[in-house]
């Protein structure tokens, strides 16, 4: 039953992705390029070599974290648009920790820096959480504002206290032992992948198999029933924001410890915002987020090759991404198709 239901959702999602790609092919054709060639390189770019596969995962990792952060919020009925700001705080704190405690050995330093990043993200998200719980201030507004404030704040702190001499606003490089070990040499694909998957699993169990997760979902589904059954919904809201922010913070800290090896202003191309799309595409479920983030990873890393080798402007890839999101959002397109054509016959709903 449940398996059937999930299978159906997956089928619809696949159909959505294929439709979006077909529509994208039409656009590529219209703009005078070869769609076949384009998609060949899309695939090649995403999976064509060990290096390319590594790059695909590399693109996937931060989106797993931010997607998960947003999804956890949604599970509790909170729309955390602030993952971007939380990510910056997390990245900044992780870099600081790695720099300040640079004489600690790696097996202590790395967890410490990761934790510092998670903690900073948590605390940054806690403020909108507390405001929501205690004053009712809508988290959509406060988290948007906290994005701007957080990014400006890290820039200020960096410039005035931690900046490395030079033309770029960045901290100095973190020590070798603070860097996450690479999984595949020279690809920057690091243990961050396992951390991401580990966090997915943890969150899956937390949400579905613990009382804590039960309360979190309960508050999201029916806050009155939560109160009725003795759940302190204010506390859950604050805790959820702490959790959500912590995960977003990990997006930042793994970027610092695994990819950038330092904090740089404005390093994120909007991972926090893409995380919203990833979360909803993944139906706000941990495993869904994993797949959605991977899909985005494929589109982005494949898109790079499309741009390089098929000379397709990157913007067309953006359009295809937009189409995928729209189509996946609207499974009923395919339900209509199914009723009309019987493509999906066989599942009984």
């Amino acid at each position, binding site marked *: 039953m449940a398996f059937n239901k999930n299978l159906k959702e997956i089928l619809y999602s696949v159909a959505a992705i294929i439709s979006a790609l077909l529509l994208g092919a039409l656009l590529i054709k219209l703009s005078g390029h070869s769609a076949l060639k384009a998609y060949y390189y899309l695939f090649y770019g995403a999976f064509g070599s060990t*290096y390319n596969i590594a*790059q695909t995962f*590399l693109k996937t990792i931060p989106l797993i974290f931010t997607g998960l952060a947003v999804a956890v919020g949604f599970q509790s009925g909170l729309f955390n648009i602030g993952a971007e700001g939380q990510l910056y705080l997390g990245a900044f704190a992780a870099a600081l920790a790695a720099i300040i405690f640079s004489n600690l050995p790696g097996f202590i330093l790395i967890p410490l820096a990761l934790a510092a990043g998670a903690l900073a993200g948590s605390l940054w998200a806690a403020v909108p959480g507390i405001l929501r719980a205690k004053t009712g201030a809508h988290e959509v507004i406060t988290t948007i504002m906290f994005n701007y404030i957080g990014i400006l704040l890290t*820039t200020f702190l960096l*410039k005035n206290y931690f900046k490395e001499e*030079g*033309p*770029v*606003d960045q901290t100095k*490089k973190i020590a070798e032992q603070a860097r996450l070990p690479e999984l595949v040499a*020279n690809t*920057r694909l690091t243990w961050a992948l396992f951390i991401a998957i580990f966090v997915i699993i943890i969150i899956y169990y937390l949400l579905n198999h613990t009382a804590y997760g039960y309360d979190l979902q309960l508050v999201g589904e029916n806050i009155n029933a939560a109160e009725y059954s003795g759940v302190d919904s204010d506390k859950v809201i604050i805790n959820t924001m702490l959790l959500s922010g912590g995960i977003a913070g990990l997006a930042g800290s793994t*970027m610092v410890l695994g*990819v*950038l*090896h*330092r904090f*740089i*202003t*404005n*390093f*994120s*191309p909007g991972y926090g915002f893409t995380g919203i799309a990833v979360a909803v595409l993944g139906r706000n479920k941990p495993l869904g987020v994993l797949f959605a983030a991977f899909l985005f990873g494929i589109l982005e*890393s494949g898109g*790079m*090759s499309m*741009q*390089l*080798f098929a000379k397709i402007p*990157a913007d067309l890839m953006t359009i295809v991404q937009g189409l995928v999101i729209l189509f996946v959002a609207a499974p009923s397109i395919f339900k209509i198709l199914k009723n009309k054509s019987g493509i999906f016959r066989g599942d009984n709903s």
Partner: protein
Amino acid sequence: LAEGRIAIVFATGGLGDQSFNDMAFKGIKAAREEYGISFDAAEPTSISEYETYLTQFSALNRYDLIISIGFDQADALNTVSQRYPQQKYAIVDAVVKQDNVASYVYEEKQRGFLMGAAAAMMTTRTKDEKINPAKVIGVIGGMKIPLIDENIAGYIAGAEYIDPEVKVIHSYVGGWADPAKGKELAKAMIEQRADVIWGAAGRSGLGVLKAAAENNIYGIGADSNQNHVAPEHVLTNGMKFVNHTVKRAVKQVIENNFKPGVHVLGIEEQGLGYTESLLPAEIIKKLEKIKNKIAAGEIKIPATIEAARK
């Protein structure tokens, strides 16, 4: 597959930034015309893509030169250039100390100094209908980053050099692609009676020029020639000839004359300069003198705003 002999990786701002990406593109296209080379280009959208593109280009092992545009590529290039010691690289706006990398950096403060001097000379010419009696000039940066601040520091020092009474105000847009906000910041300065304003803010700077045109004062363009935005109101442009730099880097490689190491480009090396645009002849004359003095090292220019404001 890719067939070029040159590869170029732009900065994340992408083409159309009206700044160094566009200028670099101009340079590489000029090199194509002139030397008959072909090139492949990549437009990364995030910092983490630099290393990927650089690696992909390097791994093809078919390019005579791979060019990185923008200061934030330094880390990525530093890593990749060590992995491919046979490959030649050039980077603009940053220093990468590797034997196979030619680094081109600019004396940004010199450009700022020239612009500041030009603006300060202009703001006292009250005969000009666009000029008011108040001695106030302004500069608007895209974001508060060291490269921009060096320009602003030069601007302040240049004005001071001409006339210590000239007041220089500066502010930041907070982004490179918000011309509407650039325009409003300029308007805020005009309220403070600024009559010459430099917009060193990528596409946001175009809004500064628009404000200048609407309020009938002078604007100064940045990086590329932006006269077309407001032909009657763009006093001059603070040029950064990334195009020349790119073209030169290509030329050296083609002529088997690759020069790794740090190349500091200033006014003397014609890496920086200005356009004559609406500048009166006497000011041009004075600017030329200042140029010579800078080249001769007779003028010391501070590199930070704090130092410039003392």
